[in-house]
């Protein structure tokens, strides 16, 4: 026999669970925004510690440049092959260069770079900060009169916002070059024509879009990485560090995708950039 009270309790339980979950997600987003606001506030307040920023810039550059180049190159190759094969039946395979360069500049360059950095840099920021938190190093910073947001978050945030567009330039060139290698070597496409077509379709507006997107992704990766690192409870231990780190990578991937959609809408539909 079924027990009616328990059923109603369980459906109540589900509603309660969803409500709770929603509430905690919203309050987490609120907390993350507060951290972001304080970070931006602290960026403009002296003293500025350029050595800390420099260290983060180098760390990100050294860690990610090769992966970004390789990912960009192969993405460009795939685009070249796919574009050529898809355009050929309509006898417009000559547009493959335009297809590759426009996709890479406006969409895939920033995207690939952001994906690589969210896995490598975002996760490592979370791992480092959450370890510092559980081992009381953040408490130690505070006791010594140093603001952890200023000391730890600001340099990481700035470094991500600077390095993402920088690395995007590299991945974009790698992508265009990858497309070149693919169509020229596999389909005997005219290399000179490819370069000409790329040049013809490269607008200031497109580059601007690319850089705006990349900078926004960089900020998102750093904000999520730092927030996930800071929000771990001191009682979390090593297990908490692991959970926070994977959580950070997943959340920043989703944030990047959502942000990309929003930015596309704003940049193309509202501002009318090309």
């Amino acid at each position, binding site marked *: 026999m079924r027990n009616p009270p328990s059923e109603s309790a369980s459906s109540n339980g589900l509603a309660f669970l969803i409500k709770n979950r929603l509430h905690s997600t919203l309050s987490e987003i609120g907390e993350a925004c507060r951290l972001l606001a304080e970070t931006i506030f602290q960026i403009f307040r002296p003293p500025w510690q350029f050595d800390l920023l420099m260290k983060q810039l180098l760390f990100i550059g050294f860690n990610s440049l090769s992966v970004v180049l390789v990912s960009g190159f192969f993405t460009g190759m795939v685009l070249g092959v796919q574009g050529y094969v898809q355009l050929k039946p309509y006898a417009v395979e000559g547009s493959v260069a335009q297809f590759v360069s426009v996709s890479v500049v406006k969409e895939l360059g920033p995207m690939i770079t952001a994906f690589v950095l969210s896995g490598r840099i975002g996760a490592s920021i979370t791992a480092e900060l959450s370890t*510092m938190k559980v*081992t*009381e*190093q953040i*408490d*130690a*910073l*505070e*006791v*010594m*009169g*140093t*603001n952890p947001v200023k000391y730890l978050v600001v340099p990481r945030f700035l470094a991500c916002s600077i390095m993402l567009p920088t690395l995007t330039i590299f991945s974009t060139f790698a992508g265009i070059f990858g497309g070149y290698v693919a169509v020229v070597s596999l389909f005997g496409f005219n290399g000179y024509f490819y370069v000409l077509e790329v040049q013809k379709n490269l607008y200031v507006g497109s580059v601007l879009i690319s850089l705006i997107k990349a900078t926004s992704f960089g900020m998102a990766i750093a904000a999520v990485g730092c927030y996930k690192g800071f929000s771990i409870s001191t009682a979390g231990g090593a297990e908490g560090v692991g959970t926070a780190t994977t959580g950070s990578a997943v959340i920043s991937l989703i944030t990047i995708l959502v942000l990309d959609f929003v930015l596309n809408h704003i940049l193309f539909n509202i501002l009318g950039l090309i």
Partner: protein
Amino acid sequence: MISIKNVRKAFDTKKVINGLDLEIPRGETLVIMGRSGCGKSVLLKIIAGLLSVDTGEVWVDGTEITKLKKKPLNQIRRKIGMLFQSAALFDSMTVAENIAFMLDQHTDLSQQEMRKIVDEKLKLVDLHGVQELRPAQLSGGMRKRVGLARALAFNPEIILYDEPTTGLDPVTCTEINELIRDLNQQLEVTSVVVTHDMHSAFSVGTLMVMLHEGKQLAYGTPEAMINEDNPVLQQFILFGAPDQILNIDNPTLKKFTGRKPQ
């Protein structure tokens, strides 16, 4: 110097500090005793402004710190040195960088001047030639002493020690006890020492408090504590150091504790 008024602190439903009142006058060394998990480390973090309180007031050097903004709180914290139970050294930095951290952040001293202070503080805690090592390369006891050197680097007026002698050998223990006493007597710092080590407690403390269930069970001078007629307290003191406290006929031990009981 430090006064705690009716402070309550709970984690979720777990009440840790439960209406505590405590006075720590300037220049005194207060020893905090209590069973493991009774909230001693939590209390130190409340004094340092690292944990918020649920209700109550915490006064440090004439300022109520519980509702203070970050900036003025950081100003007060520069007067405070804290040794964490886990040492909490920055593991991305060398020992020297750890000790010089506050100097580097808050002063314009040259590298050379900072190095001099680092060497001097390391000598105080009896460590030599470890400047360029990383915390991961040190033993537990060494880490603790580096943590202590770091807490002393900015010449604080208030020092909070969380179990300064735990994990140290008896000789180093005695040295650290002497160091705490010297700092108290020569520089007139106000100290709060959390310890389970009764030997250390009676050798450094000028005041003592026993925490129990989030409140103070007993408070007073070491002499008063020994004479206090409270079974929980007496058990704690007796089990901790029967010889040093009871064996009044033993002059050698008495010399080491540096204090005549009763």
